[in-house]
């Protein structure tokens, strides 16, 4: 493992993504990716009394699901990295309080899943861990309640607003593949905080796109790779507006990503039928789309090399009330079938 270029890490023994699991809510289950998710919920409460409890249950059940799918005992997992959007990451810490695995609570807003996988990979390639669990979650209702308005308020969502995904993604990283064929994490490019002054909390895609651009360009410069090297370049939750901004701005920097680029927030919903405006967002967006859809594509060799860039908006409701702009972040990982 060594650092190359400005901010990329190349792994000498790339960690395997042993198994993934995904749970999504009912709206996501009506979307175009429904058949790829492991479990679809019928209602947002999932038998719990509050949205927060429901979100904790989602990340808890998904973490248990990925462990049992992988076939390795929970006691063999050395560490877990998890985070979410609620204040002080309570979904993760409440959801995983009974899991009995040393826990790192992390916050990278909607980029948390890839942040966790990046840190987990470093732990594994350094020899500090053999198996690592990475998990994340978000819930439309708990996020609306915390960041916006009560659900019953009769307000209109502007066309640039994004829809927080109810769902969770979880993955187990490992230093050996226990005889299975699985994709590996070859490079990580942790991103810098980039703030281009966007203040509109209803236009997150535009706030995060510059961070995604910075990480994308840095990744190509550090590794010497070109966009065409990857079968797919996938961002986390830029949505329709952010996606278009990223394509155009990457072009001005000399990178044409039009052909193989897409965004999880664009993929997860049907914009016309589901009335989700600019697309999906939230930790669970990239989490569930990677764990559900992309991981299966990699396993079936329909995709062999992907660059996953999870984006996050590092703000809270206080900062936006105080009129602060929204800093963005983006972390990239290269995942390949070697």
């Amino acid at each position, binding site marked *: 493992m060594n650092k190359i270029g400005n901010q990329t890490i190349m792994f000498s023994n790339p960690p395997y993504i042993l198994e993934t699991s995904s749970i999504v809510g009912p709206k996501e289950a009506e979307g175009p990716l429904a058949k790829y998710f492991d479990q679809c919920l019928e209602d947002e409460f999932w038998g719990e*009394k*509050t*949205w*927060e409890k429901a979100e904790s249950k989602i990340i808890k059940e998904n973490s248990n699901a990925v462990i049992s799918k992988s076939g390795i005992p929970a006691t063999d997992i050395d560490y877990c990295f998890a985070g979410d959007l609620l204040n002080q990451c309570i979904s993760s810490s409440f959801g995983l309080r009974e899991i009995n695995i040393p826990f790192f609570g992390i916050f990278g807003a909607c980029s948390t899943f890839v942040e966790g996988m990046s840190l987990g990979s470093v732990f594994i390639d350094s020899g500090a861990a053999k198996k690592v669990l990475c998990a994340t979650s978000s819930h439309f209702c708990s996020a609306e*309640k915390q960041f916006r*308005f*009560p*659900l*019953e*308020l*009769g*307000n*209109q*969502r*502007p*066309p*640039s607003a994004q829809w927080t995904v109810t769902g969770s993604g979880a993955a187990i990283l490992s230093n050996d593949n226990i005889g299975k064929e699985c994709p590996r994490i070859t490079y990580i490019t942790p991103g810098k905080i980039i703030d*281009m*002054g*966007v203040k509109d909390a209803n*236009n997150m895609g*535009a706030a995060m796109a*510059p961070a995604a651009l910075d990480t994308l360009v840095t990744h190509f410069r550090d590794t010497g790779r070109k966009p065409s090297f990857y079968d797919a370049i996938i961002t986390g939750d830029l949505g329709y*507006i952010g996606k*278009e*901004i990223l394509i*155009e*701005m990457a*072009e*001005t920097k000399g990178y044409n990503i039009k052909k193989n680029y897409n965004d999880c927030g664009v993929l997860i919903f049907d914009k016309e039928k589901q009335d989700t405006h600019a697309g999906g967002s939230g930790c669970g967006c990239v989490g569930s789309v990677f764990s559900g859809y992309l991981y299966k594509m990699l396993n079936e060799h329909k995709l062999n090399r992907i660059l996953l860039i999870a984006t996050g908006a590092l703000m809270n409701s206080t900062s936006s009330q105080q009129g602060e702009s929204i800093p963005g972040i983006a972390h990239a990982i290269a995942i390949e079938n070697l």
Partner: protein
Amino acid sequence: MKKIETKQEYLDYVDQKSPNSPILKNCFNAFWVGGLICSIGQIIFDFCKYKGFDDTSCSTIVSIILIGLAALLTALNIFNKIGKFAGAGSLVPITGFANSIVSPAIEYKSEGYVMGVGGKMFTVAGPVLVYGISTSIIVGIIATFFV
């Protein structure tokens, strides 16, 4: 497309990239839903008057009934759909004020009846009372000089 160097250039570019709200359609919906709510109020008003109440009582009864209806529709999870369709059409009439009190009361029930329902009830509508009542007191104080 030319290169973006400064924050201002980026913000201008974002403005141009972001879709506008369908303002004509929104205004049309706001117009007829808002007009309809006021007309329902007018019919209630006329009915009260017909029953022999004075103007002030009629107005108060109209407010109470419309607020009650808005609270009921909010509780039944219908008001947010009307609001999504009508925008200001259901927000600007007294129904919007009622909805903004009832919706946090329901949402924060999970935090308990005292600090949840009781405390959060005014998170959206509180400012309306603060500014409305404060301005009216200032108006009253000024009026004392003219009496």
